[in-house]
């Protein structure tokens, strides 16, 4: 019996060692890969493929599939398998599968909602970040860890029919006139929306909202029923919000074909889903005039590598590719649509797309700061949840 137990112990130790060894080697490989050229990575990646690996990557965006196809065309000996997962289920699935040893679990994930990525994957050691040395000069530091492959923005957009006008100050959205005319996906169902609202409570945006308040009402905001100015804004905003649409595409198409004067705060890129005949009904507030407060928000898609991947170099090469002009602005990929922005400053939006480059948006949009959100999630979520239900 004793013998058996000790044998078991040894086995368990050996097992845990191999596991930790492989974990270390993934991290080491990623560190090494960061310094390599694409040609070197390709060689390493080919070796991984030769050893029987394939890169399973999970993503919530269908453009990733296009990018993967382009990638495989550029590196014909590498095999990528794309699995689309529902945004809502992303982290439930990833935390359960990564490291569990199940077949075809993710090697890499392209996901939104940074705070959860940090809590569920990075802090738990289920996934690692990677960023190539070669791009450190052209990508801002805050966009490097975890690596952001694209930014996506949600903008205030309205139906301009019947001489309707947009807005100049976000506080207007809290006023009676806009009751039920502001369309926004339910923040308790849509993580990027709740993150945006939480970001409003950050000192920076709270101050901007206070300034906008001053400008709209001619007096300084004062603490009353609400602890901060941002909370008062959120309260007023949510009172006016209409949750008719459960998806951004429907919201885009619905507002375009719906009643004039309706305002939506939704994903800009979804304008491509709006039928051309209706598209002229929509005006992007920011393109019309600057809005006091904000004119929307920006959220990133992060790339992370699973701790138990068997092809870290392929992952690294693919991330390099996504960050490069070739990958981001390739045929039918992100750059060809409105509303996607590479953090790589050398990549510009194509001419004639009625869009602006990444830098244009940095001041007028609320950006996701995952540390801030993680620290304040609970209090603001509960404030919001009791106002939504």
């Amino acid at each position, binding site marked *: 019996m004793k013998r058996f137990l000790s044998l078991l112990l040894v086995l368990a130790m050996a097992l845990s060692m191999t596991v930790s060894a492989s974990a270390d080697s993934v991290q080491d490989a990623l560190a090494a890969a960061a310094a390599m050229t694409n040609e070197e990575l390709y060689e390493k990646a080919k070796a991984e493929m030769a050893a029987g690996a394939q890169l399973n990557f999970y993503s919530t965006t269908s453009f990733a599939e296009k990018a993967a196809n382009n990638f495989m065309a550029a590196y014909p000996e590498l095999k990528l398998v794309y699995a689309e997962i529902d945004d809502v289920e992303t982290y439930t699935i990833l935390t359960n599968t990564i490291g569990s040893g*199940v077949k075809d679990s993710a090697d890499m994930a392209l996901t939104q909602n940074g705070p959860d990525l940090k809590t569920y994957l990075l802090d738990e050691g289920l996934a690692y970040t990677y960023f190539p040395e070669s791009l450190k000069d052209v990508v801002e530091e805050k966009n490097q860890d975890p690596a952001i492959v694209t930014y996506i923005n949600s903008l205030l957009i309205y139906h301009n029919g019947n001489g309707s006008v947009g807005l100049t100050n976000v506080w207007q959205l809290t006023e009676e006139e806009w009751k039920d005319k502001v369309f926004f996906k339910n923040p308790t169902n849509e993580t990027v929306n709740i993150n945006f609202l939480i970001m409003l409570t950050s000192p920076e945006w709270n101050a901007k909202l206070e300034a906008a308040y001053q400008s709209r009402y001619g007096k300084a905001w004062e603490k009353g029923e609400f602890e901060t100015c941002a909370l008062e804004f959120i309260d007023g905003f949510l009172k006016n919000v*209409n949750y008719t649409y459960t998806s951004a595409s429907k919201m885009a198409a*619905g507002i375009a074909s719906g009643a004039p004067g309706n305002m939506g705060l939704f994903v800009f890129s*979804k304008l491509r*889903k709006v039928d051309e005949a*209706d598209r002229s009904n929509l005006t992007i507030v920011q393109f019309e005039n600057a809005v006091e407060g904000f004119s929307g928000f920006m959220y990133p898609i992060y790339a992370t590598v699973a701790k138990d991947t068997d092809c870290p170099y392929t992952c690294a090469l693919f991330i390099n590719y996504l960050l490069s002009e070739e990958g981001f602005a390739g045929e039918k990929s992100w750059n060809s649509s409105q509303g996607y922005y590479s953090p790589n400053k050398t990549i510009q939006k194509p001419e004639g797309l009625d869009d602006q480059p990444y830098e244009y948006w940095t001041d007028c949009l609320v950006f996701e700061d995952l540390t801030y959100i993680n620290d304040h999630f609970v209090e603001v*979520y509960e404030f919001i949840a009791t106002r*939504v239900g």
Partner: protein
Amino acid sequence: MRKPQPNSSMREPLLYRLRAFVTKPANLLLVFFLCVLAVLSLMPMVTMLTNMFTIHLGTEKRLYRMPTGSWTLVHFQKLFEGSDWSRVNFWEPLKHSFIVAFGAGILGIAIGGSIAWFVTRSDLKCKKFISSVFVFPYMMPAWTLALFWTNMFQNSQVGGGNIGMIESIFGVCMPEWFVYGLFPMIVVIGLHYSPFAYLLIGGILKNMDATLEESATILKASRWTIIRRVTIPIVMPAILSTFLLIFSSGFSSYTVPVFLGSAVKCYTLSTKMRALIQAGYQGQGYIIAFVSILLGCIILGINQWFTGKRKSFTTVTGKSGQVSLVKLRKANWPITIVLIVFICFVAIMPLISFALESVIRQPGNYSLSNMTLHFWIGTEDSAYETGMIAGILLNTTMWKAVGRQVLLALVVALIVGTSGMLIGYACVRRRGTRLSRFVESLAFFPYLMPAMAFGTIYLAVATSENFKWLYGTFALLVIVSAVKFLPFASRSGVNSMLQIAPEIEEAAIIFGVPWHKRMLRILFPIQKSSILSGYLLPVISVMREVALFTLLVPYARYMLTTMLFSFNETGYAQYGSAVTLLIILIIMLINSLTNKLTGASFDKGIGG
């Protein structure tokens, strides 16, 4: 009386009783299913219970500042302590769930029951049409009916101000309560399950001895009195159990409240559960799931208490009851026309609407110039604009998903139908024993568990060390669906076996007919149509299930329905409509194929 030797009395009778026990196939079946179900049906429950008392990674860990996995009661405190949080996340949604479930139960029975009465008990015209078309809404995923409802009734006065069919044709604007919120939820869920009530109640009415009604006629009771005092009490057990089934389905319905409730901030327990779990309040989410299960158990208890008190009224004894039809006289044609119009609206109109929605380029514009087939047969280039690779009929991903869904439906039907029949047989033969009651409840238990909670728990199981080979496999979906859809099949098994007098089998036992031959040559042929419907039901359930699969599929487009749900969520409305139509057509095809080949069909009666 002489006392037996303690030695022999203690040991031998036990041994003998054991032997007597195992020689009966019904006992062996019960023990087998007890073991299987204890693992597959109770285990998720245990997992869920522990989840209610532990701290999870993420929000909970941050909020309560306790290490992950530690035991706690805070979830209960938070959810039930009198505060806004408690009201918004528990009490209000509970109230809504209750109203929806109750209303849907009543509506489903009122519609299904009265159509059942007209079809089985009166000389109504066009019965064949009515009975075969009326079951369509049950074959459609419930949320597609919800979509249909908004497509129909949305108008410039409510929601986003988009114009629906009714407004564009008749210029009528329905008020907001009619378009969104509790009322349409009740209507949609009620309509969706009314065919179910129709089949169950119709089955009883069809077998009911007409003399029961005739004898009342002789006593000069009016027709209405007869229905009220004779017919309804006789079908009462069926009505009640149908009501309870619809009630619990309505209570745990997720997709319908999502599409009809969120627009007007109307939440039910199931939508709240999802939101809470998603926001990282898993503990509270599971408590809500548990409350639904508890409620379901109470309902089950009420059901058993009722059926225990009343005898089953409809046992086929071999004597044929003669049915005399109530003459509707002058009211016949008006009633027929009203029913046909109603049925066309709820059963055929959605199909037309989905067909239309799948070919129009721009929503709301039904002119011919706005129509295109490219969502069906478009090639890569033309489909690019909408983000899909190609029209659904040219898309290999789509066809693979179709194949998987159909295969899953068939495999699950085979397992579930057979198990249901065997459980029915075993439970009926050993009726009254504790073991039989226990197995019957266990088999019904998964029904009470919200599909989403079921999926979440099975995800955790399938990714655990011992079962990781299961994850992402087709087998996992088979197991999970088999467990989830066993309840109806075992119900239908019990019902059909209850209708066979035990002597029918005993007569064969006397001749030494072995058990498997008794099943295959006597019991199965006698209840062929009812048992086959036990096979057909899981096919339909699998064909339209979503919530159960979302977490367990390796990727969203793995199954046809998860693909459809993501289309609907992401706004590929035309693809969504096309796939919906395809699903309904596949179900109908399977149904009519079964009908052609075996004579049994879905509408020929669950337990009927």
